[in-house]
């Protein structure tokens, strides 16, 4: 009972902290000064059509570097706490049975079905959809400077594609060595691109060391598509590795 009271007090405290934001909220008809400045300069200085991407990658690029570092620290923490066991084929059948059991399937033929792994629909659908999802995720972060979206969104979609692949074919192993190599290389190249901005342009993470190009073209906005693609690859492989570690495992 005391636990519930403390929990209620914490929730009430959070609500009291957030209440001034809600009460003083109005829809601005005109953009505030700093926002208008960013929107105009992202078109003239950087050539990026998506102002949000310009802010995230350039004007607040150091925050993005901090976010990438936090993601890496979280993934390292998960990797430290949860150990990964080598998976054998009969172990995959046991995992399929456990996934079916916790989904609440009760009838006897369903429990025998759960012992066989994923259903025909899931296997076929994952084979069809996973490449499309990969392509969609890559599209999102390659076009980050043109359309809404960017590195983080595209990376999460790619991780969802890997999760679908894991569900559809649980007896296949993920190439962990390749994925950690790709993740480390993309994280390092993000910093290398920042240093290139320091050496060739105005400062750290300045993307103008490549030409701004024509507004709205794919090869425009300097190094912003390259930076965001690298971030997208890093986030995608990172989250896919985390989800793969969380699959139900049993002690050998």
């Amino acid at each position, binding site marked *: 009972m005391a636990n519930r009271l403390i929990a209620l007090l914490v929730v009430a405290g959070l609500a009291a902290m957030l209440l001034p934001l809600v009460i003083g909220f109005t829809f601005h008809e005109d953009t505030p000064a700093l926002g208008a400045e960013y929107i105009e300069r992202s078109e003239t200085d950087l050539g990026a059509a998506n102002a949000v991407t310009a802010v995230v990658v350039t004007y607040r690029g150091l925050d993005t570097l901090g976010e990438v570092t936090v993601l890496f620290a979280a993934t390292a923490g998960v990797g430290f706490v949860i150990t990964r066991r080598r998976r054998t084929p009969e172990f995959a059948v046991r995992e399929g049975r*456990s*996934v079916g*059991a916790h989904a*609440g399937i009760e009838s006897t033929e369903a429990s025998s079905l759960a012992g066989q792994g994923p259903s025909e629909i899931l296997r076929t659908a994952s084979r069809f959809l996973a490449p499309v999802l990969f392509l969609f995720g890559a599209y999102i972060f390659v076009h980050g400077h043109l359309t809404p979206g*960017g590195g983080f969104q595209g990376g999460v979609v790619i991780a969802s594609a890997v999760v679908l692949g894991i569900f559809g074919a649980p007896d296949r192993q993920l190439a962990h060595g390749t994925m950690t190599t790709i993740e480390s290389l993309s994280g390092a190249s993000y910093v290398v691109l920042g240093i290139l901005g320091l050496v060739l342009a105005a400062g750290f993470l300045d993307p103008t060391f490549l030409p701004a190009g024509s507004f709205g073209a794919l090869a425009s906005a300097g190094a912003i598509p390259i930076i965001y693609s690298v971030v997208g690859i890093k986030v995608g492989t990172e989250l896919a590795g985390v*989800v793969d570690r*969380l699959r*139900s495992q049993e002690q050998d």
Partner: protein
Amino acid sequence: MTTAIILVLGAIMVCAAIVALLHTSLVTSILSAGAVSLVASIIYLVLAAPDVAMTEAAIGSALTTIVFLFALSRLREPGRTSDETTQTRSGEEHPHG
């Protein structure tokens, strides 16, 4: 008009959150929490923030739900039926070794 849409969506969010709190089956609670994130991403879209809406839908609705379901499946031994799993809801409050 926008305010009315946001109020309706906010009410749906509150209902989904209450369902997540009070429902007996843990799987339904997890899916309901994912529904809260989904409606939040719709609100962000109504407020003209498509980047945030994309991130919220992908992470809060998809990946978080998947991670919760994985964690749930790690708590349970394979072979338990759904009768036992619904009865363990009050037992889940106490940490077991």
